[in-house]
């Protein structure tokens, strides 16, 4: 285990640090060697592990479902097609249940969100040290890198960039459809004419900033809560996996205890993994539904 030469704190921190590529303060580009360097890189840095894993898993989704889509026939489905159709129908039912307007984007969006997030969340169930250890070995032996500086955060949804990336995209879509469906005036009135409204024009104008403030908070809180909910759940889950993994360095008893705990937590976490993907998907559909209708 990597913790042999590390303190517990360092072990945990190591697990929670992204493999980051960016511009050092001195102007050179390269991988960050520790958390301090990542901070110094500022905005112009990229989490290579997040990008790789999200692309791999997104690619897996596209490949698997694309394969099924190419094979899709009206005949008796079998194997992969059966499974994919089951997922697609599940999403379609959910979207039909909560989205009433006609928009061809919503259902594929929901499908992509659900499957992608589910796959990214499922990386949580892989024992926390396997992939980082393998990466360290490869980087150490092939590229001669110091294993202590090789970070690999496998669970993409524990990176707030990934969850915000999705929720902000959804937010932009929400704004886009609000403008498109309700028009600028309709959207503006939705933000300023409620919840407080009055017949008196002067009162109306007085209420406007209050309404805008309240509705603005409501509007902004949607993407923030959407992404932080997913991030928080998965981050906490991953954290507990890491803490359990610490037990393995505590001897036979604690090792066995750790094994048992990890199994139990993983079983429980399957629920969270699925539930969070589902919640993200459903809320996205609900937000877009709200963007399509005056309320």
């Amino acid at each position, binding site marked *: 285990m990597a913790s042999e030469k590390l303190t517990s704190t360092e072990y945990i921190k190591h697990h929670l640090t*992204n493999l*980051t590529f*960016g511009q050092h303060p001195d102007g050179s580009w390269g991988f960050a060697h520790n958390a301090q360097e*990542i*901070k110094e*890189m*500022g*905005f*112009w*840095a*990229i*989490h290579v592990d*997040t*990008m790789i894993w*999200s*692309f791999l898993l*997104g690619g897996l*989704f*596209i490949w698997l*479902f*694309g394969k*099924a*889509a*190419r094979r*899709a*026939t*009206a*005949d008796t*489905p079998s194997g992969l097609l059966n499974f*994919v*159709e089951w997922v*697609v*129908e599940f999403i*379609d039912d959910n979207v039909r249940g909560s989205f009433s307007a006609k928009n*061809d*984007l919503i*259902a*594929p*969006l929901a*499908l*992509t*969100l659900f499957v*992608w997030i589910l796959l990214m969340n499922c990386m949580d169930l892989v024992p926390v040290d396997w992939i980082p250890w393998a990466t360290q070995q490869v980087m150490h032996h092939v590229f001669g890198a110091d294993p202590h500086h090789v970070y690999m955060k496998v669970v993409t949804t524990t*990176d*707030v*960039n*990934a969850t*915000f*990336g*999705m929720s*902000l*995209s959804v937010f932009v879509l929400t704004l886009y459809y609000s403008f498109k469906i309700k028009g600028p005036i309709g959207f503006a009135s939705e933000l300023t004419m409620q919840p407080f409204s009055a017949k008196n024009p002067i009162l109306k104008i007085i209420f406007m900033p209050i309404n805008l403030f309240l509705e603005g908070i409501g509007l902004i809180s949607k993407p923030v809560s959407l992404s932080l909910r997913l991030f928080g759940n998965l981050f906490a889950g991953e954290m507990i996996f890491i803490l359990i993994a610490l037990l393995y360095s505590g001897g036979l008893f604690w090792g066995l205890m750790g094994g048992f705990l990890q199994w139990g937590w993983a079983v429980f976490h399957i629920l969270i993994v699925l539930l969070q993907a589902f919640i993200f998907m459903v809320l996205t559909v609900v937000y877009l539904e709200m963007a399509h209708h005056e309320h």
Partner: protein
Amino acid sequence: MNINLTLIGQSLAFLVFVWFCMKFIWPPLMNALEERKKNIADGLAAAERGRKEHELSEKRAAEVIKEAKGKAADIIAGAERRGAEIVEEAKTDAKIEGERIITAAQTEIEQEINRARETLRGELAALATAGAEQILGKEVDADAHREMLDELAAQL
């Protein structure tokens, strides 16, 4: 919790995946599902139609059979009647023919009797003549006594 370029990268990746899904994954799958739904509905409708047709044709078949049975019964009854008629006709014919034969036979018998009677009469006349000759001792002139002899013969 470092917000950096990854945010943009992830957003782009997300949008690309959504776009790909919308273009190449969702429509064919949905089409397949819709088509299958339609096929199943059609199949069920066809089955229902088939069932109804089957029922109808069974009813029709039963009617045809009933009709055929009625016809067959009529034909058999007609044939029986005809047979009886034929038998009756044959009986009548036979009776007539029999009577005719009997009448003919009786006529013939009467004729035979008459002929025999004539012959016997002739023979008796001859015998009587011969007897008379013997009694009288001389020949009876047949021509001379023709009248008398004929009268005798008629009396016999």
